[in-house]
């Protein structure tokens, strides 16, 4: 069975930039994860943003930008939209932060509440009124294809009107390598074909999300899939990695054909 959808939104947070096509903001990165302020993400006050851990803020912000790109951030009234994210690292940094409080004999309930990899999806669902399914996929090769497939399947077979899907990884330093493709998003000079081909675990830290909707007559970018290993773009080219779609979707970011 083949599932089809249109890509109608893109948002990301990397070490150096965040935003959506046409609205890219520079970032200061402190430690492994970028520092994100509420006003960078939401136009209105939103108290829960301040208490989120940095992993959640990153994923939440990328989702917010993707929804904004798709024109879906109007209010928090219930909308049957689902969320799925692939991750390799999960909220590892938050786990370690919480564990330190245990060792200090003062376990922090505020930190513990964010030691589930899926918490940022819950936060996004609350803020934007997304009442569809939401869950995280942990996988070693976090190329985003499983998330894309399950989003497509649910969109075509289930009740959801749209799906937000993508990847979110924290910035744990592996063998001294933290340079990521996320660094390059918004900075065309850093993005090379060679970098794209490197294993996905080098795409750290960062979050990247697409909005998928049922195809319409005016849909510009389509994807289809019949299994997590067989995902195709509008030109019927097989997609190896979710970043292939960034390049296809957003030529106005200047990263096409590099």
């Amino acid at each position, binding site marked *: *069975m083949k*599932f089809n959808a249109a890509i109608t939104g893109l948002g990301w947070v990397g070490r150096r930039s965040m935003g959506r096509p046409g609205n890219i903001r520079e970032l200061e990165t402190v430690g492994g994860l970028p520092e994100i302020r509420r006003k960078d993400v939401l136009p209105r006050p939103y108290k*829960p943003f301040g208490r989120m851990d940095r992993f959640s803020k990153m994923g939440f912000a990328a989702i917010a930008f993707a929804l904004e790109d798709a024109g879906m951030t109007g209010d*928090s009234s*219930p909308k049957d939209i689902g969320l799925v994210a692939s991750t*390799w*690292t*999960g909220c*590892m940094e938050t*786990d*370690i932060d*919480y*564990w330190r409080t*245990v060792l200090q*004999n003062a*376990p*922090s*309930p505020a930190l*513990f*509440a964010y*030691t*589930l*990899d*899926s*918490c940022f*999806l*819950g*936060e996004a*669902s*609350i803020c*934007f*009124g*997304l*009442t*569809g*399914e*939401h*869950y*995280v*996929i*942990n*996988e*070693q*090769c976090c190329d985003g294809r*499983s998330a894309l*497939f*399950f989003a497509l*399947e*649910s969109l075509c*077979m*289930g*009740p959801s009107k749209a799906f937000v899907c993508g990847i979110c990884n924290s910035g*744990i330093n*592996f*063998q001294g390598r933290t340079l990521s493709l996320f660094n390059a998003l918004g900075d065309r000079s850093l993005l090379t074909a060679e970098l794209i081909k490197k294993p996905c675990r080098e795409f750290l830290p960062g979050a990247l999300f697409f909005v998928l909707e049922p195809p319409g007559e005016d849909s510009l970018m389509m994807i289809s899939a*019949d*299994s*997590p290993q067989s995902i195709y773009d509008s030109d019927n080219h097989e997609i190896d990695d979710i970043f292939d779609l960034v390049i296809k979707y957003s030529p106005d970011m200047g990263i096409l054909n590099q």
Partner: protein
Amino acid sequence: MEGRGALTHSVYITRTAVVTPLGEGSDALFTGLMEKRSGIGVISRFDTGKTASSFAGTIPLLDTVHGSPRILDGSPRILDGSPRILDGSPRILGLTDILLDQLGKVDQDTRLIVASTKAGIENVERGENQDALSKGIFMSGLTDYISRKLKLNNAGININAACASSTIAIAKGAALIRAGAADAVLVCCMDVVSRFVFTGFSALGAMSREPARPFDRHRNGLTLGEGAAAVLLMNSARTKESAIELPVKISGWGIAGDAVHLTAPARNGMGLKRAVGAACRMAGMDPVDIFAVNTHGTGTIYNDAMELEVLKSIFDPDRVVANSIKGAIGHTLGAAGGIEVVLCKKMIEKGIMVPTKGLETPEKSAGKMILMEPAILTQNRILTINSGFGGINAALLIEGISWNEI
């Protein structure tokens, strides 16, 4: 009759394995619950002096062997040619070994979906985060471990959705089969009682001082537990080809969010109602036609009140019976839904719903819905439901079938 070209494929549970504080195997679980035995006791693996409770549902074997190299019970029950050894490795791997030994071999092309919330967290506790990749600190380390043990041709994924993880993992496995993207899917669900999680739930004020009492008027929180389950899903062709025991069918599933609160359920249960509604629609039936529900039933004030609201409002309160097993084995987090699916298969086979351990004085609004004693199943179908942090809810409808219905 279904083939590769069928529009959608039916999904069957053809084999299961389960490990809980009540023992190994579904018979041990079923019998223990029928006899109202408790697998919950005072925890000894870490100091609970400063936590809200000292109780948990643990698997004694994981304490016995942890930290000292030995072959479990002297018998090299093996899958990969090497004896089963826990040489100070994380309990989650010991638990996995016990589970896979019980499960036995599966076809190489079986797709793997794992469901765990905090696999690898024991390594964080030991401060082994410097070389995270090699220490298997990430969830993907567990999927890789299982894949290698079973010699599968795929690395597998882990589904993480808090306490609804395994219910959603089974739903996603079923979705792969329904779509024709896989002929067989193995869902392995597991979590252990760790100091990390224990102190966290204690800090949140969610734990009961005494063993949990789901749906009781005097309930005041949950008790943590540990366990594992494996659920082998197949399409009809593979089922006919290789199923040994009579399978059950997953005839519907649904997943929905509350979008209300990060750590508390929606009081009106709207997300769970929508998840149940979706599962029932897929199966072509109405919730009022379902007479048996395995609830999440954690024993917290708000979860159980929310589930009672859902039971009263969308099922037939005069006909539906429901239970919870968390008063007997504790809340096994990411493994909970999987263990309960294995139990549902066993309850359908036996035609009996097990009672709710710990329930003495039912919540007023429960009426006669929540079982204090075993009950005869009046249908061969059970709906099982779970909810989790982030306001996520999931439902699976399991149905008994005969061989000629496949």
